[in-house]
């Protein structure tokens, strides 16, 4: 019986480390933090791919919400531009979760990596 609270403390500490790291990433770079959360849930807490991506999305609601609020205090948030991005993105997330059950993760990962490299090059050359 002693093992249970110890194990859950250990889990909580890991979750705290992942949360803090993801929060810093999110606030610093304006992203959700999922790129940190998903691999660490898999590696540190033994999550499967589906549970990791789903739980990450749920945590991101809090992270992005609080970070956006803080950015709002600095006057950096452009609400109309956010809506312009968010409306097609909400359609996209429905497609993405549907696709997740149907296509190989490997194909997605490589496509995603390609888009990221192009974006990085564009930003650096700017």
């Amino acid at each position, binding site marked *: 019986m002693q093992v249970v609270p110890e194990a859950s403390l250990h889990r909580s500490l890991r979750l705290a480390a992942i949360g803090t790291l993801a929060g810093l990433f999110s606030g610093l770079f304006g992203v959700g933090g999922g790129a940190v959360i998903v691999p660490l849930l898999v590696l540190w807490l033994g999550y499967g791919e589906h549970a990791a991506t789903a739980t990450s999305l749920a945590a991101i609601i809090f992270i*992005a919400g609080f970070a956006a609020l803080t950015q709002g205090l600095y006057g950096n948030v452009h609400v109309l531009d956010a809506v312009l991005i968010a*409306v097609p993105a909400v359609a996209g997330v429905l497609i993405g979760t549907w696709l997740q059950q149907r296509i190989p993760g490997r194909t997605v990962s490589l496509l995603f990596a390609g888009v990221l490299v192009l974006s990085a090059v564009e930003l650096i050359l700017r």
Partner: protein
Amino acid sequence: MTGAVAIGLAGGIIAGLLGVGGGVLFVPGLVIFLGLDQHQAEATSLLAIIPVAIVGTYVQDRYGNVRRGDALLLGLLSLAGAAGGVVLANALPGTVLRDAFAGLLLIVAGQFVRRALGSREGAAASAVADSHHSEKV
């Protein structure tokens, strides 16, 4: 504007597929297609992520994939880090932040390539883990 809509759609699909917010696409999209500076783009991206994460979570929860307790704990424990990150971002010059962001994109890209190329070994490893698991059971 068409570019912004396209990047929104692509970011959303990525968010659903990979469990990220979509910000790695939203930020460059807001800079490149809508002419925001790096600070504005990051702040605006964060706001756009919220409805994406809410809808994605709702759908995933219906599949039974969300571990609510862990998600809540993760979310609450991330708040201090998130505020700290925003303060740090606003203390940095836009050009430094933009180059650091580009570096982040390359690192994340590398991570996904590794994951994709290693997925066969990964599958083999998890098969081994499964057999260990069933031995224990």
